């Protein structure tokens, strides 16, 4: 199981993947927005996206859980 957490304070701009999706290493899951930059959050390893903890428009803090891949 891989937990993907936020590296910075950001807004969730776009949710690209959905819970239950099969993802490959490097797939874009979510696009964060911070300080006028888009920061794609990528799958760190292949598997099933068992949890997507954010929705578009959420404000997330550093360390917050974004997704879980199993």
């Amino acid at each position: 199981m891989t937990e993907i957490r936020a590296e910075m304070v950001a807004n969730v701009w776009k949710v690209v993947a959905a819970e239950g999706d099969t993802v490959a290493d490097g797939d874009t899951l979510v696009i964060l927005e911070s300080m006028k930059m888009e920061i794609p959050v990528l799958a760190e390893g292949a598997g099933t996206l068992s949890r997507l903890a954010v929705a578009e428009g959420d404000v997330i803090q550093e360390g917050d859980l974004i997704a879980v891949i199993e």
Partner: protein
Amino acid sequence: MARTARRLGIKVIAVYSEADAELPFVAEADEAVLIGPAPAAQSYLNADAILAAAARTGAGAIHPGYGFLAENASFAQRVIDAGRTWIGPSPDAIEQMGDKIRARNLMASVGVPVAAGSAEPVSDAEDAIVEAERIGYPVMIKAAAGGGGIGMTVAADAERLRAGFETARTRAERFFGNPSILLERYIASARHVEVQILGLPNGQVIALGERDCSAQRRHQKLAEETPSPGVGDRLRQRMLAAAVQAGEAVGYRGAGTVECLVDRQTGEFVFLEMNTRLQVEHPVTEMVTGIDLVEQQLLIADGADVSFDVGSVKPAGHAFELRVYAEDPVRFLPSPGAISQWQEPAGAGVRVDAGYAAGNVVTPHYDPLLAKLIVSGTDREEALARTRAAVADFVVTGPKTNLAFHAELLASREFATGDYDTSVVSRLRPLSGSSGGDGAQPVMVHPASDVPGSPAGPGDGLAPSQGGARDRDPR
């Protein structure tokens, strides 16, 4: 801007979003009006809210600053239609320079050098290939409605052009609402040099020297200096004359900047684009000329004479500006947060234009510029030594800042000798995507994408998790 206006006896009314309520610019203004919530589309890009604030407070004039609506011709027109003074060029001049193809053709027609490139929008990949054969590879693929290096891609051959073209079109549509594409010959090693111009109320256009803005990450400026160490007297004279011609061609009034690329191999320059507003880095010009550019903007907007003798401007000394960003100094990723300590450097030749102070919170809503550190000296060597000392004395804790990167940049041999080009930052930070470009490199995007209803697809950043950032504001 506010300080200059107050010095001239002009009352200052600031507009601010909910996110910026605690910032010094709000406290320093004579009056401040809340124009909306944090998202820029609902506040700083909300023309209705800004015009309503102007009406309510009886503002006689509007200064658009550097970003947001500063180069928005329809906003400028609405300010004028509301009977207020627009502190900037005419909406027509903004529009003529806003379309890159139109601006290129206009420049070529008045004899300003442009890079080999397309004279009309390129509509599909096959046309692009025909066009590129004529121009010669490598070519730069650009959005015609873009600017500030947003979404530019380099293609070295037909195959990469075909692949890059569709991506560029999609992005241009998404970020600028206009899929038009322009191809230009790519200059492998270039310096980014721009000329400050002023269009006077009597129609005369003057040039106030150049600025070298080659130190960039993701096509966005990090450090600027004047004079450019890569421009000799003869080239300077030609560039300044071309910038004046560019301004005259659109009947330019007020402060503007003509951006050029200087090819380091040939020593020739080409027109890149014109910014129809004051630039972030204008203080370096102020330091060596002693001219307050904001003061001139206000005087010109009022139809008054500028404050200096137009015939005897002689820049003296050397000045650097460093943009202090709330971002980590290694990967240049955003780092918002609360500022616990803020200690500015001081000393001979040192000026700090800061947007923040201790106790402020840097939010993720806007771009990461915290402050501009501007330092001058009698020559480049003295200015550089003072800048290094000032960087060492600048203490910011809380958000990560790029000050440590600036210290490295100033210490690098390339920057220290002055013999650098637009890739200097990416050579120091090969993994940061600092040169922009395509594929695994981050690509910049535009604030238009903040506007509700603008189409948005998934990003195609292929960088490591949370490692590939795209910038949204071309300043």
